């Protein structure tokens, strides 16, 4: 087979580009019914005969004058690594709009095939597009496709192979009316510069006349004089700037083309989507419906999955920890191996498995919201609230994604135009409690709040959202003063979500989450168990080993005393450290360290009996049978240890508050550093950790006010003073930033 030829998929957002990519290559990239699903390039291969093609799915863009990061990614890819063929995906139901990007691609002089996608939707709307006529006008192959139903894919592959073999450029090009003379003059002057930059000279001339910063960088501002000269000449003749003249000419070209090839067979009917929008965006129904949706998401994720989490937890602890421990001890294996295999590997696997139900459900809910098209409407509903913290409604989508995982939430901010909005959204997105924190809440809910666990967890989610709003307000008033930026966003039509697509999306996310989290949890569990085993093995007196370990841990707890962490609860402090690697590691660390510290009784468990009890509890949890075992039997080891080490509900809840708020995990921090800069990454670590400590301490001291009023007053005063100084400092920095920007 020949070396792979590159094919780039280029098109407007939400034109079925990723669906086409998946269908062409058999890949399983995520698709969604909202703009900005693809915020990075995905690659996969397909073959036609002997020819092998590497397909690159670029983020959806409207033009090459890049305003957002995803647009910049697409433009940079096409300019810096020109593909052998570009497949331009047009939305047949919205041809005029799609052709705007096509006119830019024609300027770039790249071999091109047009995929006229979503022809079925166009037909439903009474539109027919004459693809042969369009092909004659553009001078390149035009293939009608319905990517979701695999219609036209073989023809598209053949057309791509043909164009790749001949390297035929599209015959059509846009002429720019009043600006044409300027384009031609500049083109002649910059032939060498265009050659050096490996771009088409005409494209570069057009971009320079449009005052595109990227083109000016490419030429090192060498042609400013000619551009100014031509701008002045054009102003004398037509009272237009070159950019306006170019835009007019493009629109004329598009309108002429659309007029020739599009036939409207019916008047536009009022679509179901419009009727739904009339209700769901209205004030009386919009907000209640939005709150209902959020509550249903929460209920499905937390309440519905809880009995299943308990069942998996109990069953796997019996099968992977207790049973192997009995067999290994019976086989007289050394204790260090028993500990590593049971407290390390077995317990780690059981912990990872408990994540599956809630993570599955949160990703399924987010996927359904995206696929249905409601996600973009939620941005409209939230716009009126987010403007108070200086953010556009569009910023709500990354925040909502944050309930699944912070990493994709940070990446989703790429669709925001203003850097200020992006950084602000990235700084508050980690407050949206991610799925990885849910198992921690669940374990504590079982231990301390058996009757009102759901309410307790919901309160943590609400606290996270409230802190995001307060932090947004603080940042808006201090570091990021300024007007709320305006935005335009396309509202995709409502779709009935395709379950298969949603499940594929969920599976993709769940798999990557479990692999990432699973590796880390297993590693931490095994390392801690092994280290403890080795420490005990090589220390002459086992008591001394345990004491040394505990002393080191106790030093760490000193910082957490004001939030109710006692000295003997040092595993909780170590858990917070491991949570920096990944929040899901906290439960694993607690499990391993409490197991060592408490030297849990190792009398043989009645495994069959406990399994039966766990199954009965699961059935009763879903209302199938009345029988229900004692809650304490589920995960008895960890739950008992948590109850022993956290003195009461107040200290447990304060700990959960700290877990909710403190520094994002390493993976998120790396993404934050890459996207916003390392300075903002460090700011996020310090800001969130300080806020977490303050919030947890304030909560604990208020809860214990009646028991120790003097101590509570001391800490509350100290924190108030500290907060006031912090806000003053942020205001000073913000004022200095503003002065620098104005200067």
């Amino acid at each position, binding site marked *: 087979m020949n070396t792979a030829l590159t094919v780039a998929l280029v098109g407007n957002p939400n034109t079925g580009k990723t669906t086409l990519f998946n269908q062409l290559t058999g890949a399983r990239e995520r698709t969604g019914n909202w703009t900005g699903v693809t915020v990075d390039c995905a690659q996969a291969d397909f073959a036609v005969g002997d020819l092998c093609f590497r397909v690159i799915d670029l983020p959806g863009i409207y*033009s090459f004058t890049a305003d957002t990061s995803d647009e910049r990614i697409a433009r940079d890819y096409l300019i810096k690594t020109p593909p052998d063929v570009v497949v331009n995906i047009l939305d047949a139901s919205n041809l005029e709009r799609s052709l705007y990007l096509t006119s830019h691609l024609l300027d770039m002089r790249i071999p091109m095939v047009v995929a006229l996608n979503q022809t079925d939707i166009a037909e439903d709307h009474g539109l027919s597009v004459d693809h042969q006529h369009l092909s004659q006008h553009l001078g390149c192959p035009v293939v009608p496709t319905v990517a979701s139903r695999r219609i036209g894919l073989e023809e598209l592959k053949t057309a791509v192979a043909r164009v790749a073999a001949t390297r035929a450029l599209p015959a059509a090009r846009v002429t720019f009316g009043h600006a044409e003379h300027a384009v031609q003059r500049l083109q002649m002057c910059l032939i060498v510069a265009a050659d050096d930059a490996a771009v088409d000279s005409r494209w570069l001339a057009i971009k320079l006349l449009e005052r595109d910063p990227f083109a000016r960088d490419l030429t090192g501002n060498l042609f400013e004089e000619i551009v100014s000269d031509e701008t002045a000449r054009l102003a004398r003749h037509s009272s237009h700037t070159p950019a306006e003249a170019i835009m007019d000419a493009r629109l004329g070209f598009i309108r002429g083309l659309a007029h020739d090839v599009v036939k409207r067979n019916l008047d536009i009917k009022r679509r179901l989507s419009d009727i739904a929008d009339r209700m769901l965006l209205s004030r009386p129904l919009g907000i209640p419906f939005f709150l209902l949706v959020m509550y249903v998401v929460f209920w499905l994720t937390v309440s519905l999955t809880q009995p299943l989490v308990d069942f998996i937890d109990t069953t796997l602890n019996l099968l992977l920890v207790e049973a192997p421990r009995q067999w290994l001890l019976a086989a007289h294996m050394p204790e260090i191996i028993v500990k590593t295999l049971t407290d390390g590997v077995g317990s780690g696997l059981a912990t990872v498995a408990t994540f599956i139900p809630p993570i599955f459900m949160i990703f399924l809910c987010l996927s359904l919201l995206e696929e249905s098209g409601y996600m973009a409407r939620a941005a409209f509903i939230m716009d009126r609230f987010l403007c108070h913290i200086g953010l556009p*409604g569009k910023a709500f989508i990354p925040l909502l994604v944050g309930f699944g995982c912070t990493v994709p939430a940070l990446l989703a901010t790429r669709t925001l135009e203003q850097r200020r909005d992006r950084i602000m959204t990235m700084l508050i997105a980690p407050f949206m409690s991610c799925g990885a924190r849910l198992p921690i809440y669940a374990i504590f809910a079982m231990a301390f709040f058996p009757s009102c666990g759901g309410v307790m967890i919901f309160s943590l989610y609400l606290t996270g959202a409230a802190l995001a709003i307060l932090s947004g307000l603080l940042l808006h008033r201090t570091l990021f003063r300024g007007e709320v930026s305006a935005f*335009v966003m396309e509202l995709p039509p409502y779709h009935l979500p395709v379950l298969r697509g949603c499940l594929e999306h969920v599976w993709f996310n769940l798999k990557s989450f479990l692999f990432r989290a699973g590796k880390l949890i297993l590693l931490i569990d095994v390392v801690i168990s092994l280290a403890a085993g080795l420490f005990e093995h090589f220390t002459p007196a086992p008591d001394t080993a345990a004491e040394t370990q505990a002393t080191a841990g106790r030093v760490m707890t000193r910082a957490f005393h004001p939030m109710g962490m006692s000295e003997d609860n040092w595993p909780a402090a170590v858990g917070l450290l491991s949570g920096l690697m990944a929040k899901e590691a906290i439960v694993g660390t607690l499990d391993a360290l409490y197991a060592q510290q408490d030297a849990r009784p190792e009398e043989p468990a009645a495994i069959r009996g406990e399994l039966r009890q766990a199954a009965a509890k699961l059935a009763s949890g879903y209302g199938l049978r009345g029988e229900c075992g004692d809650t304490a039997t589920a995960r008895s080891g960890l739950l008992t240890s948590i109850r022993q080490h956290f003195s009461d509900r107040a200290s447990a809840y304060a700990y959960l508050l700290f877990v909710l708020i403190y520094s994002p995990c390493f993976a998120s921090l790396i993404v934050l550093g890459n996207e916003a800069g390392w300075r903002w990454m460090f700011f996020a670590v310090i800001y969130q950790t300080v806020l977490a400590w303050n919030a947890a301490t304030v909560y604990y001291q208020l809860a214990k006010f009646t028991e120790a009023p003097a101590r509570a007053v001391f800490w509350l005063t100290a924190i108030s003073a500290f907060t006031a100084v912090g806000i003053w400092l942020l205001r000073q920095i913000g004022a200095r930033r503003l002065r620098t920007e104005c200067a």
Partner: protein
Amino acid sequence: MNPKEKSNTLPETQFLTELKDGECGVITCNTDRKSAEMGLFPGAVVTMFRNRKNERSLVVGAGEARFLISRTIARQIAISPSGLNSQQ
């Protein structure tokens, strides 16, 4: 000019923010590049789907596409009312 003739004369320039729910117009000028690139370009027929004075954004239709657009940007889009009413 008699009053009847006057009522049939279309105003010279209106902005997108002035369209009421269900009213249509043709874009005559758009100085916001981003929204123009997204499909709200001169010549496009737009329909207002939601315009409330107390809301920061409007919902506008252009062809088959629907847009959420800030009032600040909508003020940069000049239209000539087409006199059509999408609800009729």
